[in-house]
């Protein structure tokens, strides 16, 4: 069930004639002397699901607030559907939003909550009723129309908040960490529902989260932010496989950062010379980031480090001491301290390694260096 969002998330190809739904042009927000958002530019295509991802305080919520109109940018422009909305009041923007706390109106029932935006638009009563009924059916809220919002479970409240935001047919849908208040199982289910909702409505969606798992499974593209700046904009697969810098590499998933080393080519064989641990050899000439003589850092995912087979020998096999096993059910993360390299994590399916290599025992690891990401050592 949880596979659904992953399958369809990475197949998005914005067609050029669709045009852009949101253009964020050099937007900046200063809080006194501190920078909240630093000159962010971003173009979001119609129908795209874009996630703003970063640690708390990275500026992602401030950026969302500026799109919704609750935060006034210090500089820059925000264009939605070709119209500059930078100075427009929030209530004239036609942008739907789901708040982290849902912000449902406690003095109204489910139906009145959902109808609120339509009534504000002064639609005829019959049309309001029809649209609300559609939204209720779409969010599977049938039978809850007359309930007080306080009588609803977290998941139901979430669906009311979504229904209330989409019923006005907004130009853009903003989701501010809407899943963070839910427990783990419900969160997985709501991810699927969000994904389905996006497919059904085709709404341009901007999703804010600090949870990289949510970002990877839901998004067409992810905008990684840190300290107010955009670090990288890429599809989930690109982001995971080709992080642009050390921050992105370590923020998305688990990754081993090897110490800085020098690129060398000898007899057509590319290698990375680590001062404390000798050379590691690339199976083929690396495509990105490699230049003879350049100082680089190699980043390697735990799934690209494996325990060496008994008697296996070669240039990319290093031996260290087991520091800890973190058993995760389907797999085990084993931490190994390697002389000259430091702490290396390996990801092994199942639990065999826990008994096979107790803590403190030596363990040989094979690095699949062809999968390594090379970044400039100065970063």
């Amino acid at each position, binding site marked *: 069930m949880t596979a659904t969002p992953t399958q369809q998330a990475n197949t998005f190809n914005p067609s050029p004639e669709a045009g852009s739904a949101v253009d964020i042009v050099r937007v900046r927000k200063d809080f006194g002397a501190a920078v909240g958002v630093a000159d962010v530019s971003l173009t979001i295509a119609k129908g795209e699901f874009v996630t703003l991802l970063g640690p708390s305080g990275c500026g992602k919520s401030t950026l969302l607030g500026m799109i*919704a*109109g*609750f935060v006034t940018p210090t500089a820059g422009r925000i264009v939605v559907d070709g119209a500059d909305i930078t100075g427009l009041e929030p209530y004239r923007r036609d942008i*739907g939003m789901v*708040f982290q*706390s849902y912000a449902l109106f*406690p003095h109204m029932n489910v139906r009145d909550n959902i109808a*609120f935006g339509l009534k504000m638009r002064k639609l005829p009563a019959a049309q309001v009723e029809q649209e609300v009924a559609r939204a209720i059916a779409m969010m599977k809220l049938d039978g809850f129309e007359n309930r*007080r919002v306080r009588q609803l479970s977290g998941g139901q409240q979430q669906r009311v908040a979504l229904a209330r935001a989409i019923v006005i047919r907004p130009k853009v849908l903003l989701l501010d960490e809407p899943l963070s208040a839910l427990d783990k199982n419900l969160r997985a289910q709501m991810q699927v529902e969000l994904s389905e909702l996006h497919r059904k409505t085709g709404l341009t969606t901007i999703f804010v989260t600090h949870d990289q798992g949510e970002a990877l499974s839901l998004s067409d593209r992810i905008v990684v932010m840190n300290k107010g700046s955009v670090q990288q904009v890429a599809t989930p697969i690109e982001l995971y496989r080709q992080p642009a810098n050390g921050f992105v590499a370590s923020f998305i998933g688990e990754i081993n950062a090897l110490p800085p080393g020098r690129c060398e080519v000898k007899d057509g064989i590319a290698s990375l010379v680590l001062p404390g641990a000798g050379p590691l050899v690339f199976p083929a000439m690396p495509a990105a980031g490699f230049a003879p003589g350049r100082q680089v850092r190699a980043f390697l995912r735990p799934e690209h480090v494996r325990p060496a087979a008994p008697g296996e020998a070669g240039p990319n096999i290093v031996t260290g001491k087991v520091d800890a096993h973190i058993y995760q059910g389907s797999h085990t993360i084993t931490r190994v301290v390697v002389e000259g390299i430091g702490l290396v994590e390996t990801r092994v399916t199942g639990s065999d390694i826990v008994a096979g290599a107790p803590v403190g025992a030596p363990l040989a690891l094979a690095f699949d260096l062809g999968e390594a990401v090379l970044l400039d050592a100065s970063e």
Partner: protein
Amino acid sequence: MLAKRPFFITFLAPAVLTAVILAAAIFEVLQYSVREFIPGSLNVGGFTLANFAALNKPIYWWVLADTFFISLLTAIFSLLASYPVAYALVRAKRDWVRSALVSLSITPLFTGEIVRTFSWMLTLGTDGFINSILRKLGLIDMPIQLMYTRFGVVVALVQFSMPVMIILLATAIAHVDRDCEKAAANLGASPTAVFWRITLPLTVPGILSGIVVVFAWTMSAFSTPQLIGGGKILMISNLAYLQGFSVLNLPFAATLSLIALVCALGSLALMKGVTSRIERRLAVH
């Protein structure tokens, strides 16, 4: 249970003592109200229901009705005057504005009722502040009568009750979830619509308790109607005072006090019923 709370009885003792003394005093009033009045003497005679029979005169019903009317007017105008102040107090962006509003609205609580009433007499009098200003401006030739009017009494009572009303309203306004207001704006509600459809309904519990508190408080007002009403505007406590200390008819004063108490408790119970029904309908609690 008591063993787990060793200071329970010790801590409760002052409250119990106060309650017992109050109950004794009320019982004494009750006891006086069924005694015979002996003209020219402070001593009272035997058991009689004559005091209650004596209540059945239009003048007394009129005073009672007027007390209700003045209390209700005071509660309503106090609400209307206090809501904007409380709103500004909670929502002010600058700290100094907030502090200024807090000191302006709350300090009157710490000046005595007599001092405040006396200030109102200076303001409302024939040569008082308001009349002098209006005359200087040439808006009136003859001073307008503000003292000894229902209007003057209500104005002073409203000012007197505003600090309490502001505190109750400010608490309610501070509890409004700002995200709800943002969500409403996001859904297309103008600032005016946000206020009428979100902020105001969510502060109804504060509005209701403010009205109830001010109403009950004003029911027992004494010095303000005494000094500003000057005997022309009588509220029930002024009538009891008149009977007790001018006519020296203590039994009848006790009867009037008892009626005032019953009316106050009765109207509180009635209002409580109404307000809890409204709150249930709004379901903001």
